[in-house]
C-alpha cells in the first residue's frame, strides 16, 4: 500500500500520491479540516491513517524572542537553531542592551535565553527578570551556562532548562534545543483549533513544512540535477524561505548540519503582499528592474495575472538581494560561489523557466557584476517536499 502526503499551506493544499501531485486553492471561509474533507475526502478514504502524512505551514509557525549574551556566539547559534527548526524569530536582544530594549508587542510562543560557556556564573541577573515581566510569552527555555540555571529556575518556575548550546570549544550544540522546538511545534498544532482536527486524518506526527524541506536538502544533489553549493528558494503565499548550503557562508558556526534556513516573514505574494511591495519600492534597483521587465510601477497596484508574475519575480530578486553583500544586516551568502538555484513552492506554478532566468540574470549582472549564472532548477512537482516527507518518515522508524 502506498502513502499519501499532504502539505497544508497558507494558500494551497497539495496532495501527493503515487499517481502524481494535485493541488487545491484553500477556501478561507472553511476551517482547514472541513476544507480538506470537502476537496479530498474521497482520496483520504482510500488510505489508512498510518499511511497519511501531513505537514503544514498554515498556522504561520511558532514565534520566538531570543535573549543572548553576544552577537557572534549566543545569538548567532540560537538564531541558527531556531530557523532550522522551522521557527520564526520576532526579535533578538543583546543582553548588555536589555535595559534599553523594547518588549515585543505581541504574544511570543517561546523565549530562548542563552549565554556563556559552562563554568562561568552570574551572567544573568535581575535585569533579565525585570525585562521578562514586560514580555507576554507561553514558553521559556534556558540554554546558557549551567551555573546560572538554578538562579533562573528559582525566579522563573515554568522555565525549561536544557544543555548549553555553546560548547566548551565555542562550537554549537543544537540537538536538544532543536528537539525541544520541534516538539513545541507539535504541541502548538494540538492547541490550535483549526489544525488539531487534522489528527483525525493522520496517525502520524504533523511537521512544519520548512522543517520538511530542510530535511530533504542533504539528498537533493543526489536526486536532482543540482550541484553543490546550492540554495533552495521557497516562495509561498505568506513567507519566503531560503535554504542554503553552509559552504556559502563564512562564519564561526561549526555544526553537523550542512544546510541552514532563513525566513523572510514579510515577503509573500498573497498574505504579505503589502510588505513585499513596500520592500520593492524601497529597493534601489527596482525602477531599473521594472523597466527591464517592460512594465511601470503601476503594475504593483494591479490585481492581474501579470501583476502576480511580476510580484513573484520581484520576490526572487529581493530575496537574493537580502542575502547579498549589499545588505550586510542579514546573513551574507557568497553568491559568486553559487552553483545552483532551486525554486520550489507556489512560485513554480506561476512562473516559467524563462521568467525566472530573466530575473536571476538581471540580479547577477546588476548586483553581482558577473555574467555567468548559476544553474536554475525548477521543482515543478514539489519533488523536494516529497523527498523530505519520505526521509522524515524513514528516520521516524
Amino acid at each position: 500500500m502506498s502513502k499519501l502526503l499532504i502539505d497544508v499551506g497558507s494558500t494551497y493544499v497539495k496532495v501527493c500520491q503515487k499517481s502524481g501531485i494535485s493541488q487545491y486553492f484553500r477556501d478561507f471561509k472553511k476551517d482547514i479540516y472541513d476544507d480538506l474533507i470537502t476537496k479530498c475526502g474521497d482520496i483520504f478514504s482510500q488510505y489508512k491513517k498510518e499511511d497519511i502524512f501531513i505537514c503544514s505551514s498554515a498556522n504561520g509557525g511558532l514565534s520566538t524572542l531570543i535573549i543572548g549574551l553576544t552577537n557572534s556566539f549566543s545569538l548567532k547559534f540560537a538564531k541558527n537553531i531556531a530557523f532550522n527548526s522551522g521557527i520564526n524569530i520576532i526579535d533578538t536582544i543583546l543582553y548588555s542592551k536589555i535595559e534599553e530594549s523594547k518588549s515585543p508587542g505581541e504574544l511570543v510562543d517561546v523565549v530562548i535565553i542563552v549565554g556563556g560557556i559552562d563554568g562561568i556564573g552570574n551572567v544573568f541577573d535581575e535585569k533579565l527578570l525585570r525585562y521578562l515581566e514586560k514580555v507576554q510569552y507561553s514558553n521559556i527555555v534556558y540554554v546558557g551556562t549551567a551555573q546560572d540555571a538554578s538562579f533562573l529556575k528559582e525566579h522563573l518556575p515554568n522555565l525549561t532548562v536544557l544543555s548549553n548550546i555553546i560548547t566548551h570549544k565555542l562550537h554549537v550544540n543544537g540537538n536538544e534545543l532543536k528537539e525541544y522546538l520541534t516538539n513545541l511545534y507539535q504541541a502548538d498544532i494540538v492547541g490550535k483549533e483549526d489544525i488539531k482536527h487534522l489528527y483525525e486524518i493522520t496517525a502520524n506526527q504533523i511537521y512544519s513544512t520548512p522543517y520538511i524541506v530542510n530535511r530533504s536538502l542533504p539528498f537533493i544533489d543526489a536526486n536532482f540535477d543540482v550541484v553543490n553549493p546550492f540554495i533552495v528558494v521557497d516562495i509561498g503565499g505568506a513567507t519566503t524561505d531560503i535554504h542554503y548550503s553552509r559552504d556559502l557562508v563564512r562564519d564561526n558556526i561549526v555544526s553537523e548540519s550542512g544546510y541552514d534556513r532563513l525566513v523572510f516573514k514579510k515577503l509573500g505574494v498573497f498574505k504579505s503582499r503589502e510588505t513585499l511591495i513596500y520592500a520593492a519600492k524601497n529597493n534601489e534597483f527596482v525602477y531599473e528592474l521594472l523597466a527591464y521587465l517592460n512594465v511601470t510601477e503601476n503594475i504593483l497596484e494591479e490585481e492581474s495575472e501579470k501583476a502576480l508574475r511580476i510580484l513573484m519575480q520581484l520576490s526572487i530578486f529581493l530575496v537574493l538581494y537580502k542575502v547579498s553583500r549589499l545588505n550586510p544586516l542579514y546573513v551574507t551568502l557568497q553568491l559568486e560561489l553559487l552553483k545552483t538555484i532551486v525554486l520550489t513552492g507556489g512560485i513554480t506554478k506561476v512562473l516559467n523557466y524563462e521568467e525566472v532566468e530573466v530575473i536571476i540574470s538581471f540580479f547577477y549582472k546588476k548586483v553581482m557584476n558577473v555574467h555567468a549564472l548559476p544553474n536554475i532548477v525548477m521543482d515543478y512537482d514539489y519533488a523536494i517536499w516529497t523527498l523530505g516527507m519520505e526521509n522524515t518518515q524513514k528516520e521516524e522508524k
Partner: protein
Amino acid sequence: MMKVVTGVVGNDIHVVANRLIDISLQARGFEVFNLGVNTSLEEFIDAVVETDADILLISSLNGEAEGWCRDLQFLRSEYELKDVTFVIGGNLAVGEAKQSDIIPKYKSYGFDLVFHQIDLNTGLDEMERYMREKQ
C-alpha cells in the same frame, strides 16, 4: 587556571603562528580558546564575554591589524570588560615600521602589551610577568 582567547585578526590566513601560540599557552598552563585565523575583532570580544576570559591575545601576521584594531575601544565599551588584559603581536604594520611608532599607536587603541616582530617565547614570558604583577 587563567583563560586566554586567541586567534588571527582580519582576513589573515597565516596559521602557523596561531598553532604555535595555542600549544605554547597550553604548555604554560593556560586554558585556551582558539578562534583560529580569519577572526573579526567583534568575534574576539564576544568570545571573551562568553568565556569570561582573563586575556585576549590577538595575532596579526600580514599587517592588516592596523585597520581592524582601531575599533577596540569602541567594542570594549559595549560590554563592561574591566579586568581583561589585551595583548597583540606578530607583524603589526604593512612594510617597515619602527617599534617606537608601533607600540604607542597600539597602546592608544587600548592594548596593554604590544609585540611587533618579537619572538613568541620572549613575548609570552613578558605577558606572564605582567599578569603576576597585575594580581
